[in-house]
């Protein structure tokens, strides 16, 4: 039984059903049950996929010579698939209670599953135009979800996001069009097979620039980051967790890795651009974050900074690979980047869910108006501390291990200045999260918030589960690295062999 | 049953569009016409069967060339007025009473007047037609009626009797 198409078909079917269900005025429990069941099934399916070998699925039975679209399950896409399903499962469980504060549960679930279907489609596809289509699905769903509260600030943030997102989509489409014109095919593997012959042409630099701009904007790398600090905090908290936790990865960073490692082949120029983008994002993001007093906005700026780590580390790996340096160093750098990507998904979603939990009971996102919340809300407080320690890189949490590996890899690659910068950024991250601890969790409880209590088990359980992942993700790394990370790292390092793996021969 | 009155009309249009007598096309046409009748049949609700009487078909066939003739004549008239150096026009609104009985007949009258250049039916309130006329001639309602409405009305009255 081939399960790959189900990762798109199930969320789409669920999403199409919700408008009908809302008309039928079904009991709320039924809607909730369906949503949880669907995400749980997808999570189980993606975990089951980890045990299976790489494979290609030709949709419609159109086997090569390529006329149809293919779905690809290789190490990198399986890794992303698991991360997407896991975060969406936790977000849905958290939404059960949190979305009481919003109207139209049916539309919320519909848009959520469309977002999920879009991301799964992006992660699994092996076709450039199909990639564009599914990126659009995810992006449009996220525009609507950012404005789901229907207040003027949210609409404004969503509009800004929409305009910049459309510009980036236009550039992506332009890049896809140019590649189609040059190679006569949209299949990534066939493009990869023909790319080396074209590599010297200036048009390939143009294509690369279009993709870098387009997906860089979706990933909110620093020159293109203006939309993110408005858009991510405006969304309902579980959606912020989805956007920061997985959308900027599945729709931005993952595609950059896929295109530049597997399709174009990493060369020195691209690797240096990756490193520069990563380093600048890392530094600017954290500098902007330190001064923030809005909890969610602070977290959003940290997303830019943390994704900078990932891009920098993978860029270093690519650079070592391109200049013919030692392969183990490149492998370590790529591994560390991917590990940090997964860790960021865990602790950033956790932080956003914590902020949602606090906002749910206190009605505010301003750190200055909170205080002493760890006493009335022990579970949320605990989860929030774990996540804050994790993102600041304090042992024994997962963020520490990935940052350590990143720094080791950068030092081994010989970029001492970048390693120092990484340490500095890590220190600044710690500083800004000390501020969060100090103002939100410690100190006296303000008079207004005397009566707050924990929001309930449905909201606390996902927090605790994610907090456990943050702790165990680092400690148990040797146990699961072989199943999760090694195939992904191999998929990226094998570069243009992607074409041979898919087309055979 | 009233909503299926327009069924043959839809089927006829379908056959004209597909221009084929193959059984598949006809079957599809029947299905499509049924669906369209279900959707908007009660909006259309034309009484089709009386429309098929030979007398009406005859007068319809008379009406078409007559209308065409008036159309051409009005075209030439408007062209003359536009091209003439003095542009001899006298635009204005007029109101005429029509004696046609049914609303459908009045709407067809109004459409014919609109399609004829120089006159434009603006609104229809009960039996009064408000018309914009490029060159208003005459003084009384009877004058207006004779000039603009009467030629069409005479034949339409025969069709919708």
């Amino acid at each position, binding site marked *: 039984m081939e399960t790959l198409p189900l990762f798109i078909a199930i969320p789409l079917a669920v999403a199409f059903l919700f*408008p009908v269900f809302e008309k039928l005025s079904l009991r709320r429990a039924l809607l909730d049950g369906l949503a949880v069941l669907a995400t749980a099934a997808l999570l189980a399916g993606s975990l089951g996929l980890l045990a299976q070998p790489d494979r290609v699925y030709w949709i419609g039975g159109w086997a090569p010579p390529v006329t149809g679209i293919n779905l690809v399950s290789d190490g990198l896409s399986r890794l992303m698939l698991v991360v997407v399903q896991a975060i969406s499962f936790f977000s849905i469980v958290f939404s059960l209670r949190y979305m009481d504060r919003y109207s139209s549960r049916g539309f919320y679930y519909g848009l959520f599953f469309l977002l999920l279907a879009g991301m799964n489609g992006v992660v699994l596809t092996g076709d450039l135009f199909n990639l564009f289509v599914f990126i659009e699905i995810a992006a449009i769903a996220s525009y609507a979800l950012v404005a789901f509260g229907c207040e003027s600030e949210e609409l404004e943030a969503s509009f800004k996001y929409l305009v910049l997102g459309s510009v980036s989509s236009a550039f992506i489409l332009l890049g896809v069009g140019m590649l189609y014109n040059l190679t006569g095919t949209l299949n990534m593997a066939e493009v990869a097979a023909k790319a080396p012959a074209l590599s010297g042409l200036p048009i390939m630099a143009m294509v690369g620039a279009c993709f870098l701009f387009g997906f860089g904007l979706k990933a909110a790398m620093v020159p293109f980051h203006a939309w993110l600090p408005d858009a991510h905090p405006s969304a309902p908290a579980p959606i912020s967790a989805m956007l920061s936790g997985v959308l900027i990865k599945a729709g931005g960073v993952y595609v950059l890795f896929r295109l530049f490692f597997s399709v174009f082949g990493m060369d020195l120029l691209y690797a240096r651009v990756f490193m520069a983008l990563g380093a600048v994002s890392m530094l600017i993001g954290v500098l902007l974050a330190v001064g923030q007093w809005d909890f969610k906005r602070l977290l959003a700026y940290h997303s830019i900074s943390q994704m900078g780590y990932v891009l920098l580390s993978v860029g270093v790996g690519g650079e070592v690979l391109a200049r013919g340096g030692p392969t183990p160093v490149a492998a370590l750098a790529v591994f560390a980047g991917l590990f940090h990507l997964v860790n960021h998904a865990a602790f950033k979603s956790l932080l956003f869910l914590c902020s949602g939990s606090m906002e749910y009971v206190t009605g505010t996102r301003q750190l200055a108006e909170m205080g002493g919340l760890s006493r009335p809300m022990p579970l949320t407080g605990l989860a929030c501390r774990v996540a804050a320690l994790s993102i600041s890189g304090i042992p024994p949490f997962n963020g520490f291990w990935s940052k350590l590996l990143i720094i080791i890899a950068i030092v081994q690659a010989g970029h001492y200045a970048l390693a120092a910068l990484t340490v500095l950024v890590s220190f600044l991250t710690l500083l800004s999260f000390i501020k969060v601890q100090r103002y939100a969790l410690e100190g006296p409880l303000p008079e207004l918030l005397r009566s707050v209590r924990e929001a309930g088990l449905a909201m606390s359980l996902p927090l605790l589960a994610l907090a456990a992942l943050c702790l165990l993700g680092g400690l148990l790394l040797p146990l699961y690295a072989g199943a999760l990370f090694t195939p992904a790292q191999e998929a990226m390092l094998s570069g243009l062999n992607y074409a041979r793996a898919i087309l055979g021969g | 049953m009233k909503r299926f009155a327009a069924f043959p009309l839809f089927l006829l249009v379908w056959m004209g569009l597909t221009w084929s007598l193959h059984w598949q096309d006809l079957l599809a046409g029947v299905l499509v016409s049924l669906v369209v009748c279900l959707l908007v049949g009660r909006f259309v609700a034309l009484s089709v069967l009386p429309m098929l009487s030979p007398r009406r078909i005859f007068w319809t066939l008379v009406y078409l060339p007559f209308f065409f003739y008036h159309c051409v004549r009005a075209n030439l008239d408007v062209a003359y007025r536009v091209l003439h150096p003095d542009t001899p026009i006298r635009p204005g609104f007029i109101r005429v009473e029509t004696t046609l009985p049914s609303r459908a007949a009045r709407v067809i009258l109004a459409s014919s007047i609109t399609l004829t250049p120089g006159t434009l039916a603006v609104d229809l309130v009960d039996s009064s037609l408000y018309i914009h006329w490029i060159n208003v001639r005459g003084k009384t309602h009877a004058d207006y009626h004779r000039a603009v409405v009467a030629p069409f009305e005479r034949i339409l009255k025969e069709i919708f009797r």
Partner: protein
Amino acid sequence: MQATSESGGGLSPIVKTVARWMAGFILVFGLSVVLYGHLTPGGGFAGGVVLSAAFILVVLSHGRREVLQILSERAPTIYDGLAALAFLLLAVLGYAAGGFFLNFLPKGQPFQLWSGGIIPLCNLAIGVKVGACLFGVFAALAVFRHLHQRSA
């Protein structure tokens, strides 16, 4: 002029009557564009837009007030969802028959209406979907203005 679109009363009886007559013929034309998409230029997207035009015409001529009495706010999204589901169902039926989006029906004779396997059915689903969608956009902008949701 009697035009009272401001208050939602609709246009003059001339326009209303003609719009009612035309709507049926536009629907027939739209459905022929949809169903013959695999034989002639056209298909679900173009035909769906034509289908929505018929309904938009009726709504435009009759005005908000009259329309709001028969049209529910949810109708467009429901037809939209159901048609999308039908399209997905065709794909999933193919999946059951051996491959996602497999064209599992017999191909038929070229140039006949019944040819191309699932293609005409897909066209039909897309046509309904696009029609409902465009009409939904129009209704949301011009008829409802603000949607009053139940909190489910």
